[in-house]
């Protein structure tokens, strides 16, 4: 049996739009993954810390406030600092296409836009981390 993928679903920044994060968390759990949800209003430091503490394979960030270009790279940088760059970061939210390219060049593993089927996220995670 394949090992269970451990995912930290995290909400960085100040916005409270947690519908997407919770829907994805539910879907990943129903797909057999171990899911930890940080709750709202997390700083990059809190998220990186939780990712290391919980020894997850991957962090999923949900961000709808427009602060993605600040939050994603900051979390990646903090993971690196804690020698945890093996923990990959993916995410989703209100993110324009050109910013998706920027984020990917900054080391974000994958960005899922609005309207994504949760099965695509599951498929992606299983391919990469199982």
């Amino acid at each position, binding site marked *: 049996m394949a090992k269970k993928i451990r995912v930290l679903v995290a909400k960085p920044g*100040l916005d*409270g739009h947690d519908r997407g*994060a*919770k829907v994805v968390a539910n879907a990943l759990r129903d797909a057999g993954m171990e899911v930890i949800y940080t709750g709202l*209003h997390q700083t990059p430091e809190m998220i990186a810390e939780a990712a290391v503490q919980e020894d997850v394979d991957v962090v999923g960030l949900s961000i709808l406030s427009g*602060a993605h270009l600040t939050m994603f790279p900051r979390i990646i940088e903090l993971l690196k600092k804690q020698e945890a760059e093996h923990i990959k970061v993916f995410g989703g939210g209100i993110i324009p296409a050109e910013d998706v390219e920027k984020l990917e060049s900054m080391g974000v593993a994958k960005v899922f836009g609005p*309207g994504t089927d949760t099965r695509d996220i599951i498929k992606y995670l299983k391919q990469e981390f199982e």
Partner: protein
Amino acid sequence: MKEEKDRQYSKAKEKFLETFEGCSAQDIDFTTVSAEPVEPLYTPDDAEDLDYTRDLGFPGQYPFTRGVYPTMYRGRFWTMRQFSGFGTPRDTNERYHFLLDHGQTGLSVAFDMPTIMGYDSDHLRSLGEVGKCGVAIDSLRDMEILFDGIDLSKITTSMTINAPASILLAFYLCTGDKKGIGFDEMGGTIQNDILKEYIAQKSWIFPPEPSMRIITDILAFCSDHVPKWNTISISGYHIREAGSTAVQELAFTLADGFAYVEAGIAAGLDVDSFAPRLSHFFNAHLDFFEEIAKYRAARRIWAKRMKHKYGAKDPRSLLLRFHTQTAGCTLTAQQPENNIVRTAFQALSAVLGGTQSLHTNSMDETLALPSEKAVRIALRTQQLIAEETGVINTIDPLAGSYFIEAKTREMEEKAEDYFRRIDELGGVVKAIEKGFFQKEIGRAAYEYQKAVEKRRKTIVGVNKFQLEKEEIEIPLLKIDEQVEIDQRNAVRNVREERDNDKVSRELERLKVAAAGNDNLMPLILECARCYCTEGEIIGVLKEIFGEYEEPPFF
């Protein structure tokens, strides 16, 4: 004669049912977007015990099912109020002038996340968020710029602000005051609905108890000094956006509203001193008739409870006046132009449901903040409904429809069921602490997502009628990184230029009052007047009130 007619009716209905059963139906899920079953046909049997005077009444008459005003849109159209704000106060001021020049009739301020959460633009937690999803307002200085060249005695302004509502209201009032406009001449709305923050929107600062105290302070202050201000906009919009069903939106919103009424009464206020200034804010979602029934049921429930349970005597206390916004969560990033059409249907349901004010979303909002062209089309959508379609000619045109009346009653009954469950949990605040609303909404959101993925529910362009390769061809509004730098500098300048001794004294006075029982509004106004920043005022209140934390669950 009547017997003969009844016999004919029964026979015809029987025949219809037989034929209907004999035909094969399409393989479609015939439920509403909220997964509520709908009959293929409604008949007089479904409205049999409808009592016109008791259940509907005339427009402007109890129980106000048909509308809160006797003239409705013949008197005046709804207020076309596009929610807008981004970047610096100067950027947004320019957008306001653009909207007013294009025939918008009221303003509606979107604040950025740091403002909503009570942080100044130069706070560490504001990093990357300044001016992004709304305008950054740190002090009275920013508010003065925001309304530069706009006469606050002529326009009404709605401000979507909750936990720090008292402070932003104070900034606004001081802005007008400095131009010689009296508090009693200014009209507008603060959202100030903290309960739905804990339930759905999740932008809280203080725990529920002190938050409710601030709200009752605002109610008391405004009924004495700012009589044209709508003190709470009791909001279902965010509950629905977070994934609730239509019935949940209706029930949870009204439950919140009644909780404010009870808090006001418990604080010693006469219900009629503040209830006329409570307004509501609903979502206009996809399911056309379900939405219309929702608005009609809301008016009836509110009027009945205000009259019978809370003993309101002033007829204005019984009126559920509401703003509507089309459903942002139904917009798709795929084929974004389709959003224009979605929004038009949603807006039409709000108008047929008797809204007092309306925001229509722009087609590009799943991608970024709306561009000028997208906003103009959204505003034009409302103008088209008002000026071209003819739906404004007659009041509550769907009344008496077997379907609409049955659905209106069904929604009222289901809302009453929820009220009972909330009472059993010990009221709204207790239910929040137990995560009741949050879990109900989370479950509904996940069920809907699964229905979409199994294609039981269709989203055009997403799970049906997709395009192979899609180029997004609409220009997006970008917020320059310079905005954050400029705004950080601006707030630092304010701190240098003001009378800092006075600032310290006023903040100290506010702190003392917060620890006691005095109404906080006059003190917050004094803080605002001497250019205390929002973050400073919130900081003082946090010392006394503490901060709320939600246990994370999903």
